[in-house]
């Protein structure tokens, strides 16, 4: 008997064979700007809905904030499906997803989440504009306050479902983060939503709301950092495409350092040291933009590293549970 015809059992000593080192899995087709942009904007938009119900209507500053959030959410809920359409090619291809509701498909769930969110956001924006007197005041009766709660509920779903969508695939990197990627996306969506809100509030001169938003942003950013560090430790060899090499450098530079640590420091500075108003506004703008860049880069790097991940056949042979 030759070595080759030996019965299985002594195989442990032989390294796992591959088929000419060819990848076993197919390359994800989500490499364009559009998918990454949707993952980012969808999460931010969801976060805006949540902040909208957290804001305290007793404060004038928070009422102003709610109005800004409602309008921004409406704009984003028009933008998100458009971005998805650019990926699918033709608008009617988006409608194919509205044929069915499939609980088992996070993409189907996400599309319905997006549609319902958009509906609620539209009603909520109408209510806020009516309350502000921008459109006839009686229209507020058509849009009861419950839509704000609904928008927050669907928004909470939109913050995290994209993480579930990625981790419920055969991609070795994404699937190794079945808990970590959704948590990181939820936290990053919230910190980015806070950043966008505080940016807009600052531009409106609503410094009281900005103050609260920045505290919330610090918390979400810190949670995101913990989730990413825990993912790196947990993912092991499956995490290599994301945490080492050029992708790792990009993640550390633009997300961890520029997108989390730098805004944390800036926001902490703002909370502790009383700065003159214009200086403080500049500080907020810089911190917010950095957080948004970090959030976008997180999605971009995770998608890019997923493409690297499928090139390793060994990672694909034994798939993460």
């Amino acid at each position: 008997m030759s070595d080759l015809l030996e019965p299985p059992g002594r195989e442990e000593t032989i390294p796992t064979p591959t088929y000419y080192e060819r990848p076993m899995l197919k390359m994800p087709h989500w490499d364009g700007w559009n998918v990454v942009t949707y993952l980012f904007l969808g999460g931010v938009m969801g976060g805006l809905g949540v902040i909208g119900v957290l804001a305290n209507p007793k404060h004038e500053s928070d009422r102003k904030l709610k109005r800004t959030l409602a309008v921004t959410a409406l704009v984003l809920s028009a933008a998100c499906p458009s971005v998805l359409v650019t990926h699918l090619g033709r608008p009617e291809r988006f409608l194919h997803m509205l044929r069915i509701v499939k609980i088992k498909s996070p993409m189907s769930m996400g599309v319905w989440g997006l549609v319902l969110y958009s509906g609620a956001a539209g009603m909520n924006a109408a209510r806020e504009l009516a309350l502000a007197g921008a459109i006839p005041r009686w229209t507020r009766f058509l849009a009861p306050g419950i839509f704000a709660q609904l928008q927050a509920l669907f928004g909470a779903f939109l913050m995290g479902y994209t993480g579930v969508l990625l981790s419920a695939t055969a991609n070795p990197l994404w699937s190794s983060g079945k808990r970590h990627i959704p948590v990181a996306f939820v936290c990053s969506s919230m910190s980015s939503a806070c950043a966008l809100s505080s940016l807009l509030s600052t531009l409106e001169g609503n410094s009281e709301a900005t103050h609260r938003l920045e505290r919330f942003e610090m918390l979400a950013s810190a949670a995101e950092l913990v989730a990413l560090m825990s993912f790196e430790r947990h993912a092991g060899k499956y995490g290599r495409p994301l945490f080492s090499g050029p992708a790792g450098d990009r993640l550390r530079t633009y997300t961890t350092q520029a997108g989390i640590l730098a805004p944390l420091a800036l926001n902490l500075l703002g909370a502790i040291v009383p700065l003159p108003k214009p200086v403080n506004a500049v500080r907020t703008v810089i911190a917010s933009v950095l957080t948004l860049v970090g959030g976008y880069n997180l999605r971009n790097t995770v998608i890019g590293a997923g493409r690297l991940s499928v090139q390793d056949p060994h990672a694909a042979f034994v798939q993460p549970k």
Partner: protein
Amino acid sequence: MATGFFTDTTLCIGCKACEVACKQWNELPSDGFQFTGDSYDNTSELSGTTWRHVAFVEQMSVDDQGLHDRWLMSSDVCKHCANAGCLEACPTGAIIRNEFDSVFIQPDVCNGCGYCVVSCPFGVVDLIEKFDPEGSRYNLASLVEGRREDNKTALQGNGGVAGKCTLCYDRQKIGFEPACAKACPTESIQFGDVDVLRERARKRVETLVGRGVSGAQLYGVDDVGGGVGPLNAFFLLTDRPETYNLPAQPVLPSTRQPAGYSSAAIAAVGLAIAGWMIFRHE
């Protein structure tokens, strides 16, 4: 009736008649031609337009009795899983299980989102390339549309749809066996009722092990694990699955969703409570 393939790789002679028959019957375009240097395999992989792929593995070893070599050939195909990752992932309902228990993509419903591509634990399904006006690569939908409107397709320039083995749904409907099984000259590819084929596969592997062909093993006749279940297209291999580019431990992607959704929900609720404290209790 559930139908499927039993691909007995010990009978495969690597003639690629299955690849050709599949391309011809399904009117799948050429993928171009290039020498890979990987034995006689210049097809390389299953793709949106290649639904049978013959793998070639040359193995050699020397001991005091001389040179031993063997040449493994195996015709790979979509596994038509009991629990199919692509079918579960598809957000449009384009991927269905038909009356023959096969996993079938309806090209007119598919919107080309690409979620099935990343959800197949075997790396089978892929998007068919964009319409190419040069004509060297075009897609199924363009073929259908092209007949309706001269040289113009609704998908032109907009990316394609997903493609994979249909288990020759159209042929089965008129009582024919799939083109690859029909063309196979050695009955390495056997088509029929999966229960009958499973029985045959179990007997065959017993016979081979009895004859001393060690390493003979079945892949996909029983549950492959990870929630995927048994396969409707299964294989008799003579080496580890990885040798043929098959995963040793595939996992059904949707099994990770409960962990994902619950973790996301905990994070969202935690943040919302913290946010409530910040906004409401100052």
